[in-house]
């Protein structure tokens, strides 16, 4: 936990922007540079920043262990779920074109966004998990 007022305040102010930027990068991944991995890392970094500056307790309060685990799994589930939906709709695994968004092109777009979201959630959650696991001294 850092006692420096400037750092604490700046962090508090910056946090929403960092997170929004993370979400932007995730959403943008389908048409430009960026994507689930990069965005997820940014999101994860925001949580790590909280824990570095405001202390681990604060970070755990905002993102509890339980939710962290749940995010871990849901991200992958979103990814695999979309894959399976494609499958049930008559396409191959992850063949977005068959998604029911009107045209194949639109299906491709939105399907990919969905995938990126799934990847982003997982990467963010995994980043935080790794950080917490590594930094905790007296666990188990």
């Amino acid at each position: 936990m850092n006692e420096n007022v400037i750092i604490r305040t700046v962090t508090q102010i910056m946090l929403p922007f960092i997170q929004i930027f993370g979400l932007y990068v995730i959403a943008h991944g389908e048409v430009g540079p960026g994507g689930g991995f990069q965005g997820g890392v940014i999101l994860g970094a925001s949580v790590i920043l909280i824990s570095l500056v405001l202390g681990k307790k604060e970070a755990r309060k905002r993102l509890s262990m339980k939710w962290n685990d749940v995010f871990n799994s849901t991200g992958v589930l979103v990814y695999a779920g979309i894959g399976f939906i494609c499958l049930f709709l008559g396409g191959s695994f992850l063949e977005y074109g068959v998604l029911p968004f009107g045209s194949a092109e639109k299906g491709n777009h939105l399907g990919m966004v969905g995938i990126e979201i799934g990847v982003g959630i997982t990467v963010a959650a995994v980043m935080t998990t790794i950080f917490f696991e590594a930094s905790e001294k007296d666990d188990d």
Partner: protein
Amino acid sequence: MIEFIAGKYNFWIAIILMMIGFYGVIAKGNLVKKIISMNIFQTAVFLFYISIAVVDGGTAPVLWDKNVPFDNPLPHVLILTAIVVSVATTAVALALIIRIYKDYGTIEEDHIREIHTKRVTEARKNELC
């Protein structure tokens, strides 16, 4: 001869980096240094991959003018995956090192082995008594 060396400099760099990493993995006793060397080793391979994708005068294959030659994007994509894998491996390795440190109080391989042997012999002694 010069041509042989200079013409394929990307290979040589990759090989030299690889060997540096390999040496580190083998010779270093410190577990963290081992991991660093391992990363160098892997990165050398990644560099090699990227370098074979280059096309003379090529550009990035993103929204490019169709008349200009472009670099082969496939190795880049592959290496992205490989990097993720390597990060994951490093993460697992570091997590292991933390656990090892908690157990043994050191991350020097020789010390760990010493402590382990001592523990095993003690356990055997206790059993005999």
